[in-house]
């Protein structure tokens, strides 16, 4: 039954035969295109079956050469007629431009996007501060439940992974430090290294990276999907402020939790380093703790704890801001989520450098 589509040119008459359908068409279009001669008539007598693709091919030849189609029954005539009606010039692709201009335009658009993203973030920070002020003015509007939920998601559920990460980092610092310092016979100073670097830098920094990857991305994806599903518009029309209901609980939770998580990470890293020192360097835990107290100035703790909420603020702002910028399609949610993590980690590291210079210059060495 499924006889492949075929044609022959016989004294100016183009005779089609077989099934003129998409499934049976094979290389017919190419062969038709290679046909040098202009037929005078198209004969469909031998065609068993025809679908719109077959009708289109017949219609195209008939139109290009202004020739008649014969041997078609009513249904086929109607089909070809219908296809003829649908034969309108239609743009398939957006207009393309020369590569050089395209590169220029992409650079321009990238710069513009980066600038707008930065100003947008500053604007969003302002809006958040206004939102906080609104809460201070009307404490009744504070959404305790939403924030408790965020405390759980951002903080409690992150304890495991951040603990494990910090423990391993503590061990790595101790091990690497001991190997290097042993060359000078000074491996006992590994304790200084562990205590100072975890409390001052790594505890908070690694926690910030982990929170950005865990929670910042989640904020962007959640808010982005809600934006797509018009949930945020629905909230606004009901009179619920998305700032108060969605953004502030997330921002406040992250700001409050970052110092706690950072401190927790530092403590676990010190424990990890301590265990390594006990096993590898034969420094008993009691001595280790005593040494830590002696060599780590209290300002190191303050440095870490001051940086942490700022980093938390940045991470939450980037996540929520990018989430609220989602428009259009599902791909955008993915792009914005990635952007939120990249932006957050980048800004955290930039600010960390600024803090390092600042604390050195005020004498907290």
């Amino acid at each position, binding site marked *: *039954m499924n006889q492949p589509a075929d044609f022959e040119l016989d004294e100016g008459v183009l005779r089609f035969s077989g099934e003129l*359908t*998409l*499934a049976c068409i*094979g*290389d017919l*279009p*190419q062969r038709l295109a290679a046909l040098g001669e202009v037929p005078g008539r198209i004969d*469909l*007598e*031998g*065609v*068993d*079956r*025809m*679908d*719109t*693709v077959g009708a*289109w091919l017949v219609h*195209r030849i008939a139109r290009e050469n202004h020739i008649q189609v014969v*041997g*078609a*029954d009513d*249904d*086929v005539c*109607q*089909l070809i007629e*219908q*296809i003829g*009606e*649908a*034969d*309108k*010039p*239609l*743009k*398939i*692709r*957006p207009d393309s431009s020369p590569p050089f201009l395209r590169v220029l335009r992409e650079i321009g658009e990238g710069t513009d996007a980066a600038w707008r993203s930065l100003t947008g973030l500053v604007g969003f920070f302002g809006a958040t501060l206004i939102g906080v002020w609104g809460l201070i003015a009307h404490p009744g509007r504070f959404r305790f439940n939403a924030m408790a939920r965020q405390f759980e998601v951002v903080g409690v559920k992150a304890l495991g992974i951040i603990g494990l990460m910090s423990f391993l980092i503590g061990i790595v610092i101790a091990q690497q430090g001991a190997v290097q310092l042993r060359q000078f016979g000074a491996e006992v100073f590994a304790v200084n290294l562990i205590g100072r670097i975890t409390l001052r830098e790594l505890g908070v920094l690694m926690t910030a990276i982990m929170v950005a990857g865990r929670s910042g991305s989640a904020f962007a994806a959640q808010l982005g999907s809600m934006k797509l599903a018009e949930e945020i518009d629905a909230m606004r029309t009901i009179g619920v402020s998305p700032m108060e209901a969605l953004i502030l609980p997330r921002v406040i939770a992250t700001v409050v939790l970052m110092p706690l998580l950072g401190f927790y990470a530092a403590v676990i890293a010190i424990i990890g380093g301590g265990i390594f020192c006990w096993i590898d360097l034969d420094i008993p835990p009691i001595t280790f703790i005593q040494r830590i107290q002696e060599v780590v100035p209290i300002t190191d703790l303050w440095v870490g704890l001051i940086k942490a909420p700022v980093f938390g603020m940045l991470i939450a702002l980037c996540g929520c801001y990018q989430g609220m910028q989602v*428009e*259009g*399609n*599902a*791909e955008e949610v993915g792009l914005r989520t990635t952007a939120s993590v990249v932006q957050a980690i980048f800004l955290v590291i930039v600010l960390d450098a600024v803090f390092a210079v600042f604390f050195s210059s005020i004498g907290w060495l």
Partner: protein
Amino acid sequence: MARLNIAEGETIIHVAGLRNAFGDQVVHDGLDLDVKRGEIIGVVGGSGTGKSVLMRSIIGLQMPVAGEVEVFGEPMIGRDEHEAKQVRKRWGVLFQGGALFSTLTVAENVQVPLREYYPQLDAALLDEIAAYKVAMSGLPPDAGPKYPSELSGGMRKRAGLARALALDPQLLFLDEPTAGLDPIGAAAFDTLIRSLQRTLGLTVFLITHDLDTLYAICDRVAVLADKRVIAVGTIPELLALDHVWIQEYFNGPRGRVAADAAERAGAAAKVKADLAQSGDDRG
């Protein structure tokens, strides 16, 4: 020349003893339905009676707990991927929201099934096919390079229909095609489906809440209630049945308006035909 091998009355979709359940919630229990070749069957039912779930079971997106589903005489349950693909290319599906691929343009969306199943087609022919499919489904000429997010709901449905028709399927599944369209657009959509069904010899499985669509284009209507198909037949046949839901559905205020409209349209067509007839006589 026999264009279509229509054996009228041949069963295209055969569903027997279908049972679907989500956890404890049973959606279908002992559901039977046969769809004949070349007909437009409308599926109606209250919200939550599992109209979409029925469609998803037939097209293999929902694994039924029990029962058999055959499409084109081929069992659909437990088939391997390759065999299922051969059946899948013979049908087209229009999902409720259009379900266009959001990262592709309308024209590219239409080309996706063509590229997937017929990689040997050259790019120029693909573009031409996409162009006439888009035009046939009633979209304006500038719609081709647009992305789904730039289209209105009605245009998305039309683009979805263009994609469903891309492979020239013999069987078309439509999930609420006219929901959310304005009355003019909905009527045009009905006409479009009807004329496509006639010229292409399509079988159409149509889920709808739109009474006008039911009256205008459906050959038969299947009513879903009590977890099964309680009745299948033409609208007059259904009206003769003594079932509370059916009576309320078709004889409610909206049902009567739709019936009147269909009657008027029928009468107008008859008058037109009579006039043409008398014109011919005089000529």
